């Protein structure tokens, strides 16, 4: 028992909170399942695409295998978005937010450390899996594809995973409920951007262009009418910043879990 309270520099408190978040993330099975799902999706699709290209009677030659990184990132991102949002919502579902805030009572420190660890982990995993998918399609399609062009694709992949996971995590802090957050992420990232332009109303297409899913799709596969690189980056950044801000306001103002 220590008689006098020791004041610890806030940088050290933050570093410790990050270490705790790292341990918290990797000591539950869900994280490993989401990682496995992302791996199977991205590497699996890339492998199948590579084999199909190799079997094509008129095979495409000389194209970059890095296309696999971007294309498989589109479905694969959802596994890592789920990883990011459950890192927050599982704490509310299990009541674990009470010990979390007991151990790290400065809410800004908890928020920033969780955000930093989860976004970095999701981004690094996204880039590694995209690279693995590229290698898988390169190997299975040999000798059709080349490994040139990584610098054109990887920064976009990294940005989409970083902004997407920040968006999902902020939404988790805001809604505090796994099902509600998951459904909202799917609607905004996948369902609405695909559906809205099909109704033929201009204003619905306008709305669709401002959803995060449209920005992610443009940066990964590029075939989104009405989107540009700038508008995609701005859209994704705005959504990520907005949900993080709202999530922070809820965490900082409300009771821990009531």
């Amino acid at each position, binding site marked *: *028992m*220590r*008689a006098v*309270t*020791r*004041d*610890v*520099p*806030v940088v*050290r*408190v933050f570093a*410790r*909170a990050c*270490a*705790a978040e790292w*341990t*918290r993330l990797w*000591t*539950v*099975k*869900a994280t490993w399942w989401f990682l496995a799902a992302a791996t199977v999706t991205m590497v699996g699709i890339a492998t199948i695409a590579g084999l199909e290209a190799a079997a094509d009677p008129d095979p495409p030659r000389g194209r970059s295998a890095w296309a696999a990184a971007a294309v498989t990132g589109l479905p694969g991102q959802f596994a890592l978005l789920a990883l990011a949002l459950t890192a927050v919502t*599982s*704490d509310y579902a*299990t*009541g*674990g*937010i*009470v*010990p979390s*805030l*007991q*151990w*790290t*009572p*400065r*809410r800004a420190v908890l928020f920033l450390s969780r955000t930093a660890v989860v976004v970095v982990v999701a981004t690094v995993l996204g880039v590694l899996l995209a690279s693995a998918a590229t290698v898988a399609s390169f190997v299975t399609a040999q000798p059709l594809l080349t490994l040139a062009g990584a610098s054109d694709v990887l920064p976009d992949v990294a940005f989409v995973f970083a902004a997407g996971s920040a968006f999902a995590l902020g939404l988790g802090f805001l809604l505090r409920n796994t099902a509600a957050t998951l459904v909202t992420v799917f609607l905004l990232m996948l369902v609405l951007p695909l559906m809205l332009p099909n109704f033929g109303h201009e204003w619905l297409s306008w709305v669709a262009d401002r959803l995060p899913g449209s920005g992610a799709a443009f940066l990964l596969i590029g075939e989104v009418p009405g989107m540009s690189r700038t508008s995609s980056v701005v859209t994704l950044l705005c959504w990520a910043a907005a949900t993080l801000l709202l999530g922070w306001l809820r965490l900082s*103002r409300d*009771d*821990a*879990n*009531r």
Partner: protein
Amino acid sequence: MIEVRGLTRRYGDVLAVDDLSFTVEPGKVTGFLGPNGAGKSTTMRVVLGLDRATSGTALVNGRPYASFGEPLREVGALLDPGAAHPGRTGRSHLRVAARANGIPRRRVDEVIERVGLGRAASRRIKGYSLGMRQRLGIATALIGDPGVLMFDEPINGLDLDGVRWIRGLLRQLADEGRTVLISSHLLGEMEQIADRLVVIGRGRLIADATTEQIVSGLGQVRVRVRSPRPDVLRARLRERGFEVERVDDHELRVEGSTAEEVGGLAHALDVPLHHLSEVRQSLEDAYVELTTGSVEYQGREPVLTAEEAR
């Protein structure tokens, strides 16, 4: 030390805690008593910075809990033993706590041993019984070797051995000079464990005094007396202003008197006695008396303060 001053917490129209003030001192086990919904858990949550106070302050060692960089070295608290990720092992749960507070990893194994969690620490929490979750929660509270400990209903779910263990543990922690606050609805248990009691009802302070003072200072002392000639004794006791109740043909219950007085009077009257005893009010009686009163109680002042009880 825990200091609660003028603490109020309102949920919409409901006043969960109403201008509550008390101090929990080191070196003692302080029991936090009150009926369900009295505001005990809310008060503990506000002390830990989990819930916001509408007004008033709650300080631990003179500071708000949220200001500590290493909170587990200051306060160990167990509020809800179920509040942990069920998919994590007990050891991993403790490792997260240790890393967040810069506590060396060997402490994890030390507290696992201290609470008797043993090999269960390597299993996932979802397979734990309530008693094992309590032990894990207590291990987490002890991991930083803190000077202040707060347990919400720590005896819940423990078997007889567990209850005896926690009784000994709480006493030991207080004897080491730590501040120990426990809430419990098990009044008999409180009577055995707590040195001091803070009793609340409907969010308000009802009593803040030693357990002894609360037990002896509230209810009237009662005397049980059996005699073949109770009528003579009863008549004379009533003349002296005592309230006497006839329990059966041979037994009387005298309010506010002592065994010496009744015995002396019987001797003077030459009335033979077959039984004479003082009935000490149990904490349960005192508690019911206190908290029942709080339902209709409208004033702002506590019924009994430490000063009055002294």
